């Protein structure tokens, strides 16, 4: 029963926000903060009860073998914490911006939150697929209604592309379902079914599931919807997409791929990891020549997610724990990066880096805070980014030294493109576009400050974060070792 509020709080907030008109933002923020409080309470309960897994199950579509089962272990808890931290930040980021029909916007955001949270705690394959698809719908409308130029073509592409990818996952799940002993979609049954398959078939199932995740994260060469979609998406939409939504896929790797097809992964996983590493380097290189800051962070996100994917698929302690920490860091840092974009564009109307310059001279606070976010992104030690990336590289290195070394090259390329964007926009002489630049408001400072505190805080003291998932990851690894 403890798990239901995680779905219900955002859902009810969505409905209330829709009907509260002008006050929708207070409703949404209140609801998301309540959700955060509840998740922290869950965390407290989890730690005090000896890290017992929470479960909830009730029959739903028995003749199809589908039940409404939820479960939350340390891994799910990490993701729930991520979405419950990011959500109020996204809402607060849009606090003083003019959006038409705000009540609809907030209702859709909260709806999406509910669906994403559901995907993080679903313990039934069909339910996971359902949440996965439902989450797509609100963000589609958010991008379509509040997006920038060319939104119709781009959102349609985004929608169809990811939808198509998830069909492959559905096919794979149905195939597994046919092999389950009790003909259900229950998590454990799917695990059993997957593990009983011969290696070759496990490989095929893995390919189907991974395709859905590869499009969602995205990794090369399935990424072309992403830079465009981020580019036209309104800031809250971009934050949701990169801050939380893509973690459905990386979480999926841990929950719905590694334990399902351990043999297939062992046999063919190197190809997926290799592709992820290619994706890291490819996206890093492309980031270097981006002229628009928003496109740059879109490609930078691909690079970081590639590393998460590669580390997770290494299927060892460091890789998975590093991936979990990096998901949290990436979520927080994405909010920061997109918020900086939003602040700059709201003043100057452009994010073309060549046109900007010298903003730090006018607004030193923004310069300073943006710098800290950049440090988090380039994974300087004592920032949140380092903890995740170091463990990921270490995990990948334990799996395969050569791939580990190639992935680690991203720490050099990351500095090249991130510092380039920082310097072009923040330093140098004040360019025309920034002449009438207004300093950031207190509301903006508050949010950026929170991001900075989280970046440094998790970087200096990551131990409690790592402790959340340690036991569950260990159990998962024991499970696939058998």
């Amino acid at each position, binding site marked *: 029963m403890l798990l239901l509020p995680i779905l219900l709080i955002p859902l009810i907030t969505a409905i209330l926000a829709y009907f509260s008109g002008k006050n929708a933002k207070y409703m949404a923020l209140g609801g998301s903060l309540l959700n955060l409080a509840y998740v922290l309470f869950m965390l407290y309960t989890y730690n005090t009860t000896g890290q017992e897994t929470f479960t909830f199950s009730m029959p739903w579509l028995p003749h199809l073998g589908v039940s409404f089962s939820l479960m939350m272990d340390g891994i799910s808890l990490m993701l729930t914490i991520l979405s419950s931290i990011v959500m109020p930040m996204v809402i607060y980021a849009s606090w003083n911006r003019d959006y038409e*029909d705000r009540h609809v916007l907030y209702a859709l955001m909260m709806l999406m939150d509910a669906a994403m949270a559901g995907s993080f705690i679903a313990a039934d394959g069909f339910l996971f697929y359902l949440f996965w698809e439902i989450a797509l719908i609100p963000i589609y409308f958010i991008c379509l209604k509040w997006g920038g130029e060319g939104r119709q073509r781009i959102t349609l*592409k985004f929608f169809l592309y990811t939808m198509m990818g998830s069909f492959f996952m559905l096919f794979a799940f149905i195939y597994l379902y046919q092999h389950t002993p009790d003909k259900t979609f229950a998590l454990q049954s799917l695990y059993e079914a997957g593990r009983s398959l011969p290696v070759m078939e496990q490989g095929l199932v893995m390919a189907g599931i991974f395709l859905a995740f590869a499009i969602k994260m995205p990794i090369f060469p399935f990424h072309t919807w992403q830079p465009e979609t981020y580019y036209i998406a309104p800031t809250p939409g971009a934050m949701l997409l990169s801050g939380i939504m893509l973690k459905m896929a990386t979480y999926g790797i841990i929950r719905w791929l590694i334990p399902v097809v351990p043999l297939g992964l062992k046999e063919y996983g190197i190809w997926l990891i290799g592709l992820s590493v290619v994706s890291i380097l490819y996206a890093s290189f492309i980031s270097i020549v981006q002229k628009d800051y928003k496109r740059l962070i879109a490609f930078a996100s691909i690079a970081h997610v590639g590393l998460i994917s590669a580390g997770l698929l290494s299927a060892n302690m460091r890789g998975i*724990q590093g991936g979990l920490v990096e998901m949290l860091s990436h979520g927080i840092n994405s909010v920061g990066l997109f918020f900086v974009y939003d602040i700059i564009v709201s003043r100057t109307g452009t994010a073309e880096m060549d046109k900007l310059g010298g903003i730090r001279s006018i607004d030193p606070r923004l310069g300073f805070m943006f710098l800290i976010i950049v440090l988090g992104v380039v994974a300087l030690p004592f920032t949140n980014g380092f903890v995740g990336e170091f*463990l990921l590289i270490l995990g990948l290195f334990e799996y395969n030294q050569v791939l580990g070394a190639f992935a680690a*090259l991203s720490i050099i390329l990351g500095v090249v493109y991130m510092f380039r964007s920082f310097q072009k926009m923040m*330093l*140098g002489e004040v360019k025309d576009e920034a002449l009438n630049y207004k300093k950031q408001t207190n509301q903006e400072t508050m949010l950026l400050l929170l991001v900075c505190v989280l970046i440094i805080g998790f970087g200096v003291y*990551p131990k409690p974060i790592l402790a959340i998932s340690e036991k569950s990851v260990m159990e998962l690894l024991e499970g696939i070792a058998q």
Partner: protein
Amino acid sequence: MEVIIKIAAFAPLVTFVTIMAGYKWMSKTLTAWVACSSVFVSFVCSATVFYDQVVNPQQVVVMVYHWISSGTFQSEFSFLIDRLSATYMLFITGVAFLIHLFSVGYMWEDDGFRRFFSYLNMFTFLMLVLIMADSLLITFIGWEGVGFASFMLISFWHQDMKNNDAAKKAFVMNRIGDFGYLMAMCLLFYHLGSLSYSQLFYGEKLTALQALPVGVLSLIAGCLFLGSVGKSAQIPLFTWLPDAMAAPTPVSALIHAATMVTAGVYLVARTSALFEMTPDISMLVTIIGTSTAILGAAIGLLQTDIKKVLAYSTVSQLGLMFMALGLGAYTAAIFHVVTHAFFKALLFLGSGSVIHAMSGEQDIRRMGGLRKHLPITYKTFLIGTLAISGIPPLAGFFSKDQILASAMETAPVFFVLGLGVSLMTAFYMFRLLFLTFFGEFRGTEEQKHHLHESPATMTIPLIILAIMSIVGGWIGIPHGVAHAVGIHKSFDTFMEPVLGKFEMHASLGMELLIMGITTLLILGSIYYAYVLFVKNRVRPVKDTEELTGLSSAIAGKFYIDEIYRKYIVQANDKFAGLLENTIERLVDGTVNAAGTVVSSVSGQLRKVQTGQLEHYVVGFVLAVIVMIALLI
């Protein structure tokens, strides 16, 4: 003792945070007091720690807290105090304090006074973490941290894009080195399951380390050395250091001469057990070090910017230290790190005093005759110049002599090359001295009018550093001589518990002979500089004049920057652009083509797509209802 060790490390952090927090209301005077006092506290604590190590040479491990843990990977934030780290602590905090003091005068007029001191404090803290850490991972915090501090201080005057480019170049080149460092950590953890110095090099894992195949050990040592190459500006990653002179001069003295750039030397010395087992990599260290020493000294011969001369000199001196490290003379390298910290900090601060007096002018072609106007600066600068040239009995003489003597013992060819570097060093340093302080004043009337000796907060550090540049070398009197006069303790024996026994077999006569010859040759080199620049009044050519042959190559810094820019930076950009224009387009085009086919088949979709939001919502709800109904 544990508390003192912690205070030594964290005092500058506390004041860094204080200054950041009190940015708005703290006055300049208060900021200066706060910033300097914490470093002084840290210095006093370091001195206590050092004294404790003198009396009681035991490794002390101080656990601060548990940082990262993931399964078998456990990393504690803890300090390892032994004679090596205590020595580094002492000279780092000492020099840092003097430079803080100097900066009060130097930066007083600058708008970013508070910002500057907060960065300096941050740097001091991170530098201490770097050398006090008990594991490679914790050292890495300081290692990347000081690189970041250096980035912030190079781009301190960030309105000028040139400074920003220099800062980014420094950070990227450092990161290339850090990539090696990271790989070394991965390898060590992979093979031995630990990153702690006290376990790996002095404790229970040492036998396991020694049991690793030489190939793996060489890979680890090579990766670590790549880290050192980046941080300590060696070939091929040295070009960032001269550009880093865009930072305010006290920063050049502290970070880019005395402390941060010697971190690479520290790393190799700290992991010397590893390098001892990998003769090939040690040879590589020597060759890279010697080449860098020669290259840096050669470029230094023709530089006309007072700070650039000193920068290339630093590159060259660091090269000498690596030469010594590769030859197994770890104590000699550390000894030179310490003396170099004194005289190079002195020289940089002296140049700062000159630049301050010249209202920002850095070109020595527009200086001259400053001896009369800046008497204290001149005298201390002269001492620094004598010290770096290796004139007895100043500090540089002893450390350089030890490096050359150990080269003589192991591989005489490096003795000859090292001697060549020393001769060039003496020449370019005296060229700098003569052009700056002797002859006629060549600047503008306005500059001449403004010439003044610097205030006491600037001259006092100069005087103290000058004294240290004289006496600092007396701790390492050559063995033969020391034994002859009855001294049996020296820097070598002091370092023995950490760096191992340092064997010297040369007889007293041989030692004296080497010292005599090198000193005579150096004096000759100085005399040559004197004849050229004082007697014959040779002046460096103007930028417009054409140079020929070797001298044009030297003046052009062997075009290494240009080569890097063209074949690495631009090639990299071109490659990235190519990727975007070919593969990215191809992939996207394929997806779009597929999409077009699909959407033309289902033409109905287009109509829906252009409608109002309400239609969608209705459509969506209907779809969900139908879906669920179908399922049930």
